[in-house]
């Protein structure tokens, strides 16, 4: 048997909509939701009103103990939006949960007044309301968490792109300063952005600078070789620069064969790149000294 038939909650929300809304908003204000100025009172009132409308429709049409049905779609969408907004606005999880959980107080007060001295009914109705609001609260927290995770994921992606810039040093010369450890995922990003830039700038030489790579082990070396080979298949020669003394020693001790031209500094690599392209950097002719 469906609980919707037994409970008076939908009817109550319908009848005393205004009062619940007023009490609820007061409750939220008391909990200090709007205190930090992240959200205006008007906004809060609007959200509360829309939520109550959705809640009434959901409760009237559906069961109170299962929120996954289509009759709760509107409520879930609204909670997703509210939680998402609050995650962006910098609310804490508790502050977000209060939005739903603070509905308990006005609802319970109303139930007590309505049912009066019938203890059994009161207990049943309170239990049903409590269960419903707890579920809604949990859903809100989940939505909040999800949008926080989306933010983190996006930041990670941005960080990945930030950390692999491809710089054009000269017409046909690209530089790829690598900072941080090279793992498979990063190698993939590095390779893709390098190859794309080789196509767009028709580069012939790419300088891979590993000054910022803390250690070179067999795996990192393998990733480097992959990048170099892929660039070569696209018709660009690679030069590896920025090899620190310790790294040179490590490479030899590990018996790694990089099989690519390497230079100690980016400047040396750039000079070699220019020479390969038959270009040279020369001093400018001194302007003639006058008045002598």
């Amino acid at each position, binding site marked *: 048997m469906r609980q919707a038939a037994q409970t008076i909650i939908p009817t109550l929300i319908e009848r005393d909509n205004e009062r619940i809304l007023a009490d609820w908003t007061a409750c939220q204000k008391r909990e200090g939701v709007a205190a930090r100025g992240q959200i205006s009172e008007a906004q809060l009132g609007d959200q509360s009103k829309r939520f109550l409308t959705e809640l009434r429709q959901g409760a009237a049409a559906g069961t109170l103990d299962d929120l996954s049905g289509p009759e709760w779609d509107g409520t879930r969408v609204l909670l997703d939006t509210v939680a998402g907004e609050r995650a962006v606005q910098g609310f804490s999880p508790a502050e977000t949960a209060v939005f739903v959980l603070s509905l308990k107080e006005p609802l319970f007060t109303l139930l007590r007044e309505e049912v009066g001295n019938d203890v059994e009914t009161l207990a049943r109705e309170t239990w049903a309301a409590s269960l419903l609001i707890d579920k809604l609260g949990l859903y809100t927290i989940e939505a909040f968490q999800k949008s926080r995770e989306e933010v983190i994921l996006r930041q990670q992606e941005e960080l990945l792109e930030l950390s692999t810039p491809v710089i054009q040093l000269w017409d046909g010369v690209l530089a790829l300063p690598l900072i941080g450890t090279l793992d498979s995922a990063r190698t993939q990003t590095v*390779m893709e952005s390098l190859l794309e830039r080789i196509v767009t700038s028709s580069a012939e030489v790419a300088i891979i600078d590993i000054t910022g790579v803390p250690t070179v082990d067999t795996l990192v070396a393998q990733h480097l070789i992959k990048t170099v080979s*892929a660039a070569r298949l696209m018709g*660009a020669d690679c030069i590896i620069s920025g090899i620190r003394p310790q790294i040179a020693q490590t490479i030899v001790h590990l018996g790694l064969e990089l099989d690519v031209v390497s230079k100690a500094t980016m400047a040396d690599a750039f000079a070699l790149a220019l020479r390969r392209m038959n270009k040279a950097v020369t001093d400018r002719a001194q302007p003639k000294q006058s008045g002598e």
Partner: protein
Amino acid sequence: MGEIPILQIGDCLLVSIQVDMHDQLAMSLQDDLTVRIVGSRARGVMIDISALEIVDSFIGRMLNNIAAMSRVLDAVTVVVGMRPAVAITLVELGLTLTGVRTALNVDKGLAMIRRIIDSEGDLRAGRK
């Protein structure tokens, strides 16, 4: 679909692969190409694979073979126009085509062949 056309630009041959390769097509391409290199006394062979979205080990081996055959016939082979995604796939497969020269596009490939032929010409002239 019959065969892959071989175009002549000066003393270079240009092969543009635009259809899926299969055994028979690869064999006939190798036949045609070697005949044309000998017949036209070409010094360079350019293989344009910019239309290929997938290059597997079979095509990789074919490219290596063509390069080796051309070398025997004293012609330089340059593979041009490889897409970034194809390059990444080949590297992941461990096929780095070490025996083949590569260039970004036909323009650069032609310049590369010209450069190599010229430097070899110098070498021969010096040896005389």
